[in-house]
């Protein structure tokens, strides 16, 4: 009897949750479907859900016409580049703070976090002028530098919370056995730190990929990533929804898939360890 009620409850929750989940997901699903429609059917009223002439033409057009691949590779270069550079700077710092903490470590960490809270628009003008004078506007290097700096606090914090969980006893045992600092890092720390580093890498590629304030303001053509590429679809008033959808799907698909795999790390990374 009790089981029957709980099964009925379970089915009720299932229907409700799936309904809400599909409503929330609908804009993405709709974009996905529209990207396979001919332009005429994309704006059809009543809307066509599945009964349209499926086509890949939009994807072909977007690729051939608007340099999708250049923007895609710009996104890859800036997201991956800034994440790797960030890790290179952050790993030693987080390692030092996790394993040789001092009285000031907490203050340093808090201060680093506080730099993340600086609103971008507060430093837009000077960064723009400095970049103009150094000829970094619209260059990969410029975007990589900016993305590295804005995400560095998050990278350090995430790594710090992961490194904190590595048992210190093992490090001390290695030290007792006469391991040098280099050996300690290469043979003891690295294998245990790799999962944490991988999660950090994943989350930061997502954040860098979707960053839109700096990429929109500091790039025009050469280094413009997908955020800017999509924004360029906003100007003409024509109804090219199928092409917009195809371009959108290509811009979000890689990151959506990566994001689905990194849900747990997302919570930890974006709340700076305050919610685990």
């Amino acid at each position, binding site marked *: 009897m009790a089981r029957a009620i709980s099964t009925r409850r379970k089915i009720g929750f*299932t229907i409700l949750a799936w309904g809400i989940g599909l409503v929330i997901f609908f804009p993405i699903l709709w974009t996905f479907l529209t990207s396979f429609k001919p332009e005429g059917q994309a704006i059809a009223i009543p809307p066509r859900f599945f009964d349209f002439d499926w086509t890949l033409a939009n994807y072909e057009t977007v690729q051939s016409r608007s340099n999708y691949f250049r923007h895609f590779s710009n996104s890859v270069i800036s997201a991956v580049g800034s994440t790797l550079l960030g890790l290179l700077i952050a790993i030693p*710092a987080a390692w030092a703070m996790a394993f040789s903490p001092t009285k000031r470590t907490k203050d340093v960490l808090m201060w680093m976090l506080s730099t993340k809270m600086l609103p971008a*628009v507060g430093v837009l003008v000077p960064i723009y002028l400095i970049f103009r004078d150094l000829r970094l506007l619209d260059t990969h290097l410029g975007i990589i530098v900016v993305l590295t700096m804005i995400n560095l606090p998050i990278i350090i914090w995430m790594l710090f919370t992961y490194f904190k969980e590595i048992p210190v006893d093992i490090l001390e045992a290695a030290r007792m056995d006469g391991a040098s600092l280099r050996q300690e890092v290469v043979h003891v720390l690295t294998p245990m730190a790799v999962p944490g580093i991988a999660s950090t890498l994943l989350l930061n590629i997502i954040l860098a990929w*979707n960053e839109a304030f700096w990429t929109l303001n500091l790039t025009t053509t050469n280094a413009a990533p997908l955020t800017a590429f999509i924004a360029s679809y906003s100007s003409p008033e024509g109804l090219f929804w199928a092409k917009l959808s195809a371009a959108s799907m290509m811009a979000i698909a890689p990151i959506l898939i990566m994001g689905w795999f990194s849900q747990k790390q997302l919570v930890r990374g974006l709340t700076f360890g305050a919610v685990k």
Partner: protein
Amino acid sequence: MATAQTQTAARFMMAPAVLLLLAWMIIPLSMTLYFSFQRYNLLMPGMEYFTGFDNYRYFFANPNFWAALTNTLVLVGGVLAITLIGGTLLALLLDQPMFGQGIVRLLVIAPFFVMPTVSALVWKNMLMHPVNGFFAWLARVFGFQPIDWFAQFPMFSIIMIVAWQWLPFATLILLTALQSLDEEQREAAGMDGAGPLSLFFYIILPHIARALTVVMLIQTIFLLSIFAEILVTTNGGPGVATTNLTFLIYMQSLLQFDVGLASAGGIVAVILANIVAIFLLRIVGKNLEA
């Protein structure tokens, strides 16, 4: 001896990160502060001079500033209200036993990974278009007049788009907090005859209160600088109906080239964000055992 050596090594390992962040913070910020006291327009190079607080006076005297400030508060407040309430309800729902829980979670979290320019354009065109949009069709099916969203309710439209992007974030974090709730505590309350409402207000809500605060503060930091969504949908209009502080400063600096005035605005934005940041840092700091 060994510890002194490790300390030195530690200092060297931290140096690049600390120095870079220090430079990143101090150099541009002090330049913004300096420019904010200068009459400085990029269209008139070589004509800069010190003006004291004039830029601040102009900035505060500009009716657009007060409109932008109000818009910023409405935008942040509206999105927070939707995401916090909606996120709590959704997290409670997703915490229940059901079939295919993992897949529903994937569906709910997906919008968070969509880049801002994509979600804004998809909503603006395919959903909210007054003639061919999906919502317009829905309205007609139910016998209503379709709404021209960005003309009639521009700010509300932006709030909807941004709330759609941030609802997954709130849900995911609140769900994580919910799942750490002690099952026994819940059962004990149930045995004492607590109904679902009192269970929520006396057990669940206090348990997720901290997560709620964290979500609120982090979102506020990001929401204060909403930019791309406005740029690709309304461009701040109609008039200044959807111009927030970030967008106003963007227009003054990169479109009107008034560096001095924009810098004064930038400093105001920094001060506003700092007020929020202080509270967030205090909460995060309490949780940190370094």
